[in-house]
């Protein structure tokens, strides 16, 4: 009997202990939290859509447009705006005199890491969901592309950055920088998987127009290879895109950029915007509109902010072959030309600013403005990030470097044929220079120039007069606030 008592006592004592593991697992009963979301196919799609949403970030909370860095930092454009004090930090950066203590760079940093976080959420939470495996693989590949794209932005702007390959716990926030090489490896790895699992453009149903395609992953991979001077891989991958027959150049260059030219036949990677949501000057994570339209439109009666003003040097480039390159009239507005339905461009009409040119590619008509009378209406122009013409020119560059000048010329001239200008027959360095020049003309004001100059090593020479110092200005400074926020775990780039 005493044994029974002992046993009862021991049972009472340890019995509760036996089941305590489950006992302590309490998940929220009501409401959608991380603990009870991510259970269905719809949840998986919603998760990856949230990652897409970060592609649209332009003001989070300060401006960090791709063209800030790609165009304004280059010899193609100057800042513009209402004067030197209008986003003065940008002017300082443009003069290669910028401070690490600017919310422009902090916002760029933030937006990319937010994209990386959301992609990581998808990569962690979607695999256990029971759903169509083909679709699941695509969703994971989309997330990998978005993660790679954000890292591509970060590595080309800041060099090595923290390598965040999972959702961080608070104890992991003070993460040091990985090397640029590690980041590039990581990008390559993600894109490699993404380009295998992503669907081809033609495989998506129409309702999914705008989703990342296999071609987009391959094209970003080609860009990555070019940065790393992996010419052979770049050439092979670019050829895979060509041979997929998914893309072809739009017949008329002028048809690429208007709203009706969105997602056209040469669109490889395009960030989707629409003009259906209100202007939101806060963190625009829930905004489907683009602020590029209003920022780049002339001031005065055109109601824009007049940023990203083409330089004379850029315009002159279009006349260097002895004729006016036909692409100029689709790239810049010149005095006297009508600015769509908003009136004729005169100095007076733009509020008296002494600019002879305004960018045209992201111009939209008044009739296309959102209807809700926002004083700062956002536009609907998709951001043409990678076009097939870019792929052809990257192929030309890769072919040149692998000693295949014929192939290089073929691709280069395919781009020139579209606008009906003479073939390039040059060889050697002259051919390479012609490819570089073609990129400037074909892809002008599409945020490529500064990065092309840095990538191809031309920046020190081309941007010398603008203040560029080799060994420093290839990279932007790491935001000072983040060095402080990590208690110095992040280190500054040399020269800043």
């Amino acid at each position, binding site marked *: 009997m*005493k044994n029974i*008592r002992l046993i009862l*006592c021991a049972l*009472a*004592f*340890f019995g*509760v*202990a036996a089941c*305590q593991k489950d*006992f*302590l*697992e*309490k*998940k929220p*009963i*009501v*409401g*959608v*939290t*991380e*603990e009870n979301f991510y259970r269905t196919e719809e949840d998986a799609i*919603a*998760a990856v*859509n*949230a*990652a*897409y*949403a970060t592609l649209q970030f332009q003001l989070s909370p300060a401006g960090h447009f791709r063209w800030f860095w790609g165009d304004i930092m280059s010899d193609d454009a100057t800042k513009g705006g209402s004067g030197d004090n209008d986003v003065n930090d940008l002017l300082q950066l443009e003069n290669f005199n910028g401070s690490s203590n600017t919310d422009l760079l902090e916002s760029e*940093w933030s937006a990319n*890491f*937010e*994209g990386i*976080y*959301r992609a*990581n*959420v998808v990569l962690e939470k979607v695999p256990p969901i029971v759903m169509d495996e083909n679709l699941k693989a695509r969703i994971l590949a989309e997330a990998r592309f978005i993660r790679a794209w954000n890292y591509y932005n970060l590595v080309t702007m800041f060099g090595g*950055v*923290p390598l965040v390959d999972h*959702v*961080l*716990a*608070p*104890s992991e*926030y*003070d*993460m040091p920088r990985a090397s640029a090489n590690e980041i590039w490896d990581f990008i390559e790895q993600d894109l490699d998987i993404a380009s295998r699992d992503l669907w081809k453009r033609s495989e998506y149903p129409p*309702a999914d*127009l*705008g989703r990342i395609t296999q071609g987009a992953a391959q094209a970003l991979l080609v860009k990555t290879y070019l940065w790393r001077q992996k010419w052979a891989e770049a050439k092979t991958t670019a050829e895979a895109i060509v041979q997929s027959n998914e893309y072809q150049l739009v017949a008329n260059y002028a048809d690429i950029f208007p709203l009706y030219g969105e*997602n056209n036949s040469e669109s490889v990677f395009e960030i*989707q*915007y*629409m003009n*259906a949501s209100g202007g939101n000057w806060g963190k625009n*994570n*829930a905004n*489907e509109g683009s602020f590029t339209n209003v920022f780049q439109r002339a001031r005065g009666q055109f109601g824009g902010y007049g940023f990203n003003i083409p330089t004379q040097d850029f315009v002159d480039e279009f006349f260097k072959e002895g004729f006016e390159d036909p692409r100029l009239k689709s790239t810049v507005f010149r005095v006297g030309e009508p600015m769509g339905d908003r009136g004729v461009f005169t100095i007076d009409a733009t509020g008296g600013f002494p600019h002879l040119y305004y960018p045209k590619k992201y111009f939209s008509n008044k009739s296309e403005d959102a209807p809700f009378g926002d004083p700062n209406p956002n536009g609907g122009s998709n951001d043409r990030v990678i076009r097939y013409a870019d792929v052809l020119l990257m192929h030309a560059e890769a072919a040149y470097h692998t000693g295949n000048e014929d192939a290089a010329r073929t691709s280069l001239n395919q781009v020139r044929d579209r606008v009906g200008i003479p073939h390039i027959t040059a060889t050697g360095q002259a051919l390479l220079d012609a490819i570089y020049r073609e990129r400037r003309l074909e892809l002008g004001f599409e945020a490529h120039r500064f990065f092309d100059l840095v990538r191809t090593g031309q920046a020190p020479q081309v941007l010398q007069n603008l203040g560029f110092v080799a060994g420093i200005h290839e990279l932007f400074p790491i935001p000072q606030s*983040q060095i402080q*926020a990590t*208690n110095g775990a992040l280190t500054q780039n040399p020269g800043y």
Partner: protein
Amino acid sequence: MRNLLPFLFLLLASAVAAQVGVSGRVTLQPYGDAAIGATVRVKGANIGAVTDIDGNYQLNVSGPEVVLVFSYTGFADQEITVGNQRTIDVALAESAAQLAEVVVTGYGAQKRSSISGSVASVSAEEIAERPILRVEQALQGRTAGVQVAQTSGSPGSVLTVRVRGVGTINNSDPLYIVDGIPVDGLDFLNPNDIESINVLKDAASAAIYGARGANGVVLITTKGGKRNQDGKISYDAYYGIQRPWRLVDLLDAREYATLQNEAYLAAGKTPPPEFANPAVLGEGTNWQEAIFEHAPIASHQLTFTGGGERSAYTLSGNYFSQDGIVGGDKANFQRATVRFNSSHDLKTWFTLGNNIGFTWLERDGLIENSQYNSPIIRALNMDPITPVRKADGTFAYSNYADTDIANPVNGIEQTHSTWRTNRVVGSVYGDLKLAPGLTFRSAYSLDATFAVQRGFVPRFDLSNVPSLSEAPAAEKNLVNSVSVGNFNWRNWQLENVLTWQKTFQQKHNLTLIAGTTALSNRYDASGGANTNLPSNDPDDAYISNTIDPIASQSAYQFASESSLFSWFGKTNYEFDDRYLFSATFRADGSSRFGRNNRYGYFPSFSAGWIASHESFWNVPFVNFFKLRASWGQNGNDRIGDYSFTTVVSTGQNYTFGPGENITNGSVALTAANPDLKWETSTQTNFGADFELFDGRVGLIADYYIKKTSDMLYAAPIPLVAGTAAPVQNVATAENRGIELALNYRGRISEVRYTLGGNISFIESEVTSLGRGGEPVYSGYVQFANANAAKTDVGHPLGAFYGYVTDGIFQSQAEVEAAAFQSEQTSPGDIRFKDLDGNGVIDANDQTYIGNPTPSIIYGFNADFSWKGLELNLFFQGTEGNDIFNSTTRYDFAYVNRPSSALNRWTGPGTSNTEPRVSLNDPNQNARISDRFIEDGSYLRLKTLQLGYNLPQNWLKKVRFDKMKIYVTGQNLLTFTKYSGLDPEIGNVGGSLEIGIDRGFYPQARTVMGGVSLTF
């Protein structure tokens, strides 16, 4: 276990051995009074007796070796071996009550003299001499280091209890344990049922409650019966009337009109014609008198208690009802409780017991402490021109007020809000004696609450012409509405504790305790609302009676769960009654903690040295002297049930398809925190206990340093996270304090008296808000449209923060000479100090302008008795705290003002404190500034009681044991410089909302008469 069976036989054998009768008389030294109700018990057995009204006792014992223990509250126990004596008379010596009392310490009890931690106690006697309405009030001013403040003076409202100051920016409530059951809130408990309250203050004492002990632990024991006592029936009742103790001096109609005229002129506008001759307006309406009333309060208690040799019980029932001094029965609180506690020795080795209480309570709620629409803020701000009622008897509305400030009497009339609770808190336990000194207790307890909230907003319209409905929006409600909410809490706990007590060689006393606890909580809520009832009668207010379509109904449902599983152990070791050691350890696993920190571990150590028991001790007037030191760690697990996870937000959209379809995206915008854990408090305590002059003086002193770390706060995080900052365990705070409790017993001729007092000095500050942590702003004040309080590193929690006034501008030249304030700053406006000296008054000129937390809290009592008469006085107060007086809605030009406004500036030299009046306030004279900070210190005569115990010889004739009649006054005297309705203002809202008077419901001054009889 092999030894157990013989042991049981031994017990049985002793029970049947020959019985010897012993009797005698117990008296009290030094005067030889009869000790009525003293207990005489056989040491080590459940046999005993209680003395009668002459101090006589009688009981049977098993033999000469039996030791009898004589005890009487307030007197030292005496042990006598029976030997050959058949008559044993005992004269008990007084002891300082503080050191003789038994202190419940969590899974055990100890004599105060052998405690090495810091525990404050309140006994049933102390509660009895001062009728209290709520249990928390028993702690106010009675326990050093425990601050109790009203969250409202309205009946049934909760009190905030802060043990050793506010240690965290988050939940600072202590853990309440009633008869071993953790409970949320004490409103269910009838104060008359309480045997003792013990507050575990230092971390070493509270560490046995681990992750829940950081804010201190309040242990409450309810009355059970005693073995071997005659059955007793007692009836206690009181009835009283409550009144406001003061009204605020406001402008009357004449003065109001005079100031309004000036205000219009100052703003360049024409005053209303009806104010042209203020004198004819007379006094006008006193809105405070209109809302305050004399409100009754009553309590009836019936208690049955008794005990035989093998069982004891107490059954009690109580009914309590209190109306509000504002709102009367619209603020009524009623509570009925039934409690049955019993224990039974089923076997010599097994005792079964229960403590079960049932509570029904109903509270009718007015809107309280709101700066927008409470009756009090309306009464303080409503113009005195408007009458309460129109000529036809219906309620009037003000022609001057528009929003918020509406007729408060009508507001009360139209309020129908009731909260009704049925709650069962109970436990059953079994005590198993496994071997000598070794017991095992298993207890299962349940705390189940079923609450219903009903609300009804009737149709009303104070318009003069109903068809025009011209009254402002706040004075009418054209569609009535009804709402209901059901709230259920169900918590159970299973606790198993093994206790081993052993004395070695008569010098080594060892106690070992080990146990486990499993605790599970579930909360469910659901409710609904709809509009448009055909009947405007509150009795018909049910959703099913509404005629609006179902589509206009709203409904909600919510549920949450949490659980706790713990292991704990404790050891007490005493050597030769001189050296005391204690160590505890608790491991708490909680579902509230993140996956990476599921278990928290909480150690503690304490030691004491009773120097006066050393052979070398020869300080003649110091009878007892003990030094104590302790160190321990506790946690605060009130961090929310699911804070480790994060909400997934929809609306993170993207557009797809040729039609640019907005497609939903969902993601958590704030990081989850799998590392989330308890807040940790580490506390070191030093103390000393003295008993001087033959026990007439008792002194307990403590000094402590309490450091809170891992405090939850959403400090900014590096952007690599990709999310907003999660709540993390990053902030720290520190409290330091000194506590003194002094007691003196004396006698002058026939008058016995006790003087007691305690005082606590507290300092607290936030020491870190994490890396990059931004200050926390709180205390929103509507009239300034700004926060009045700021919590930042190096400052107290919720400290007042704003501008510093520097007199009134007497001339335009002074305006121009001073720092720029506004384009329209005029003479008569307040000059603010330009603290940063940049020539402009801007946000940088704000500074800390007050501290809402007292630096000193104290209480003292004086109890006198002469023959059957008793007089008890009890004072309580605070020192060093400020109150932000935001009772005047300066954002409205039409509101009434305190009569201090009569000292306004009207021309050079007229005032240097009170600014000019103006319809607009271009200089923002009403910005947050020290203008509104007042000294909130007070001293209050909380209780004065005069009682008379009827003489025994009278009572004998009617077979009563005891009968006492008394009158009690509460809050009869208040000394304060504060100008508002009441200085006793605690937390209203979050833990950083301290000392802000937004129209605080004041405490009442109460006079009541009562009777207490036992037979």
